């Protein structure tokens, strides 16, 4: 198994005619991802990497009713609409590569998806990979090896380093998920941790968070309930602090958002805290073997 995507998942690419999307469509197909169609409004009928392009997601669904995942590569101002279109079509997993999506747009799209029980990963995610099975997004595939460790991180590059570090020590990944770097995200740590907890092919989870936002703190209570070990790596301990404007943020979020608050919340709920990438494999090994 694995989570979110595997070798059977039929998937499409929204914004497939863009330069980057086209390039990574090629990479995804080469890796084994089952890309059955692409979408770019007004360009229906074209072919990109032998993938047929349609004008709308609905037309793809009419042709392949069992499409279960999509990735979104459109410019930021069109991203909200592309997500809504995928949600409306009922695609279960939506991976949003686009970065710098307006915050209010993302809140709106997120609420829609939530209401329909659809998983949105990102925006600004490098993607999701189930090594040896399939990739949705633009993760560098050579970095990942099949295995039984789930990883989830906010930053793209940190996702690569996590896998790299695990692989150098002989571990591999069941699935690696990039949550994305935008301020408002679809899925958060808790959503992905739940998936890993329920995945029979995942033995432990490595999560990497960073300064800012509240998703790490929000996930902490769930970690306390998990049976599988969670190794957490939080960056930003040495980062320069931004100042808040006004007081509303403090009223809503209190003291959340610092590396310290995140580490404390996670540790208090049983997460194992790593200080460097290199020590992660050893912490995983200890957690799994009990010594």
């Amino acid at each position, binding site marked *: 198994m694995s989570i979110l995507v595997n070798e059977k998942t039929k998937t499409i690419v929204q914004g497939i005619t863009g330069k980057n999307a086209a390039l990574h469509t090629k990479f995804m197909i080469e890796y084994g991802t089952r890309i059955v169609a692409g979408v770019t409004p007004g360009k229906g009928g074209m072919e990109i990497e032998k993938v047929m392009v349609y004008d709308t997601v609905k037309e793809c669904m009419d042709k392949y009713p069992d499409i279960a995942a999509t990735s979104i590569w459109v410019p930021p101002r069109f991203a909200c609409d592309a997500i809504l279109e995928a949600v409306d079509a009922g695609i279960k997993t939506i991976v949003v*590569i686009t970065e710098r999506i307006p915050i209010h747009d993302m809140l709106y799209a997120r609420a829609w998806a939530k209401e329909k029980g659809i998983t949105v990963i990102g925006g600004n995610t490098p993607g999701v990979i189930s090594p040896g099975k399939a990739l949705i997004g633009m993760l*560098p595939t050579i*970095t990942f090896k099949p295995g039984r460790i789930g990883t989830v991180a906010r930053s793209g590059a*940190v996702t690569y380093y996590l896998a790299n570090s695990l692989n*150098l020590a002989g571990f591999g990944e069941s699935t690696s998920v990039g949550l994305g770097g935008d301020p408002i995200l679809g899925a958060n740590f808790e959503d992905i941790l739940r998936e890993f907890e329920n995945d029979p092919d995942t033995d432990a989870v490595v999560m990497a968070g960073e300064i800012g936002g509240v998703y790490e703190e929000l996930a902490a209570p769930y970690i306390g309930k998990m049976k599988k070990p969670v190794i957490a790596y939080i960056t930003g301990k040495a980062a320069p602090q931004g*100042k808040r404007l006004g007081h509303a943020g403090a009223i809503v979020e209190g003291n959340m958002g610092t590396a310290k608050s995140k580490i404390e919340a996670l540790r208090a709920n049983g997460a194992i805290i790593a200080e460097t990438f290199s020590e992660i494999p050893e912490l995983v090994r200890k957690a799994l073997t009990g010594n």
Partner: protein
Amino acid sequence: MRLYEYEAKKLFKRHGVSVPDGVIVDKTTIDELNKAVFPVVVKAQVFLGGRGKAGLVRTANNKDEAIDHINKIIGIKHGPFFVQKVLVERKVNIKKEYYLAATIDRLEHKPLIIACPEGGVDIEEIAKKNKKSILKYYFNPGHKIHEFTARKIAADIGIHGQAMDQAAKMIQHAYRIFIEFDCKLVEINPLALTDNAQLLAVDAKIDIDEDAMFRNPELKEMGIFARHEIGELTEREKKAKILGIPYVDLEGGDIGVFPGGAGFGIAAIDLIQHYNGKPANFMDSGGAPTQEKLRAMLGLLIDNPDVKAIFGARFGGISRCDDWAKAVVQYVIDNEPQKPMIMRMAGNMEEEGRKIFEQAIKDYPELFKDIKIYSVNTPIEKVIEETIRIARSIPDKNTQGDL
């Protein structure tokens, strides 16, 4: 992106939120004072709070007094900011102060209005002392604010009678501004009831989502453009800003950090400190940097006399290793930098990138003698430790990189 008080108030005025009459003055526009109705309050325009205590908010009964204040206030350094402009506002007699804000709750993923029957004071203190007095009203994304909700909020914070309709309209307008201008924050503190029963936004804070500014051309019309204003910028930060590179100088550092995306940039600083090194900067290449941008990023570090060595890392995802290698090679050939560069390259097109470096080292052995390129097989921490050693001028002669 934060707006200055006077910019926020201009936006308020255009969209139905009443503010005190005022003019904006700098050293070159003192004549604007002729439009002022005295007595006035002269308020320094800076992003930092605590203006009152710092003597940056002063009352003036006539033009001469106002000029006197302005001459004293402009140019003062408040925190990292130099005061450049003042807002000269008609003084209002306040009967009662309230707090009103619209922002986003990232826990709930919803916009909300925060209101409090007390305002003008430290609202965070009130929130700690009497949590119940801080009222929160959540909205579904994309839904408008209803009139009755605005009236309910007004009533809840104790605004009744004649002022209720004013308050409800102001709350609606403020929320609409929050939504229509893609704000992260709209804060009115205090929202003041004057002795002649007027409701006015006496202070105004607005923070706008820069990523949505494309759809708010009205801001441009008002002279409000995208900008950075977190604090006072160093010369190097100003230069980076002009080049479009998110960059922050870190005091006392000697290792220039040339990372991939922002996430690893943050991690790299932590790791350098973890191994007792001293990072000189934070930097973010953005999603898929051009070769020009990469070369400009390197230039910022090379030109910094404090930087003894450069730590670079590229994990090829959407941006490819070969493009990165080309940019670094071209920079070295063009600029002949005299500093050691210790770099790791992994991911998409790693093989192609490696070939580019190999060719360059063959063609320009002298230029590349202090440049070490590591591959995916060396842990990033080893590369960082090596950089720190080199920066301390104790290079380990046995470590020659993986090429």
